[in-house]
């Protein structure tokens, strides 16, 4: 993979992104502002089939806004966002909902429904997508399988409040997996977790990727997480993809803005 250093006025997609595999996510010239705060200023990105792509950026750099544009939670001011070949912003609600079943989203704070048990949390996404899963009435086997994948089958009847932070993240991951998505978007998967639990979550993400062959887009500011899981990285600075390459390429960069990410 090539290491591309890009600057605000000359952004070029990486060679890796254009010459390998089929693109599952394509973002072109994405702009988003909140009042006077220009969060994304022409961000470009391509995620390839089966790839683990990490987007790193400082807090408030627009990583979460970018990832939310991918599932239609945030409408961009301009630019194109294609997921699995479909332009997100021009889809009808029903088509968007169908497409969303192919996109798993792990939220930063797990976002488990407080008023539901773990089982109900996992059953909830299946309500609208039973046909896709071939489920008629009994959802138990699917719920059990998803929980077994994250090693938490015994928590099925617990409430989220009874789980630790790491367990919540794993249940959220199981909920993400239950619709058997083709792409998984991880928004800060290790934030707020201790180093050991973070490591467990990263291992889990890797094993899921191997088992299901999903493509993963990981948004993080955790360098260790990026080092272990990334096949390719994009550094998001000032709303653009400032630099792109593998972990070892970027970590050896002498550019001050890139270096800042890897300083211990």
């Amino acid at each position, binding site marked *: 993979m090539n290491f591309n250093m890009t600057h605000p006025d000359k952004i070029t997609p990486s060679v890796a992104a254009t010459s390998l595999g089929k693109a599952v996510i394509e973002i072109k010239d994405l702009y988003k502002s909140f009042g006077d705060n220009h969060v994304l200023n022409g961000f470009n990105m391509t995620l390839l089939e089966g790839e683990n792509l990490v987007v790193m950026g400082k807090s408030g750099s627009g990583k979460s806004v970018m990832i939310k544009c991918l599932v239609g939670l945030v409408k961009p001011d301009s630019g194109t966002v294609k997921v699995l070949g479909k332009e997100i912003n021009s889809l009808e609600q029903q088509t968007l*909902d169908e497409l*969303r*079943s192919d996109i798993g989203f792990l939220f*930063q704070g797990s*976002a488990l429904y*407080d008023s539901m048990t773990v089982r109900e949390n996992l059953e909830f*996404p299946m309500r609208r997508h039973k046909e896709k899963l071939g489920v008629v009435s009994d959802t138990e086997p699917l719920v059990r399988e998803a929980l077994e994948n994250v090693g938490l089958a015994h928590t099925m009847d617990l409430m989220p409040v009874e789980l630790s932070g790491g367990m919540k993240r794993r249940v959220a991951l199981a909920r993400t997996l239950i619709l058997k998505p083709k792409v998984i978007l991880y928004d800060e998967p290790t934030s707020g977790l201790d180093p050991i639990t973070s490591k467990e979550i990263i291992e889990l993400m890797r094993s899921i990727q191997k088992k299901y062959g999903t493509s993963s887009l990981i948004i993080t500011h955790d360098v260790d997480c990026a080092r272990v899981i990334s096949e390719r990285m994009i550094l998001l600075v000032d709303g653009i993809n400032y630099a792109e390459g593998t972990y070892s390429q970027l970590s050896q960069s002498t550019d001050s803005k890139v270096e800042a990410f890897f300083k211990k």
Partner: protein
Amino acid sequence: MDNRSTLFKGVKEFFVEIGDLSYFTARFFKEVLKPPFEFKELLRQCYQMGNRSLVLVTVTGFIIGLVLTLQSRPTLIQFGAVSWMPNMVGISIVREIGPVITALICAGRIASGIGAELGSMRVTEQIDAMEVSGTNPFKYLVVTRIMATTLMLPILVVYGDLVALYGSALVENLKGDVSFQLYFNTVFDALSYADLVPATIKSVFFGFTIGLVGCYKGYYCKKGTAGVGIAANTAVVMASLLLFVVDFIAVFISDIFYEL
């Protein structure tokens, strides 16, 4: 200049709030008729709201009936009109005190609860998670809650009225040797459809207002966890104020019908 700009900002915010609330109301009416319908969640919300408010409505209603009778008794005795007690209490409770007090209790109990619940779901991204999973969160969370308050409040009001009348009857029974049967017979003789129908319709609007404001404040909750407290608090204040506005409009309209 500072005062003027603060005033201008306040007025602007007020109209923005009215506009947002109107848009939210319009969206409710658009979504409520569109399938899929969340009947299971609606029933759950009805049960939750009715069940959780029952004790509060019982205690408040009973004490209101008790106090109203105790306070009115000496004056009515002075005028030799104590036999009018069931009529007076019955009409005032059914037409005004019952619906308004029950609605205010529910505004405190339900609107704040909805505001806090939806607000916390908003800040912890649970609403976003719902949307990503292909479920329309407005339909699942907002429509069901507004429908539940709209359906449950009239039931709670009727129940609260009966409990208040029982409290009043108890005082009359203990202090005035009036049997429960005679008391309730007199009350129901004094009441007409012209008292019951407007009060019930008013309760429906009260329920709608409580659900609408609670959901609106919670659904658009901002500023992290601090915003949850603000959402719960402003939901109660706004719902209580709007209840009086709705009450005034309802009384004004029913007054026109009385005169016809």
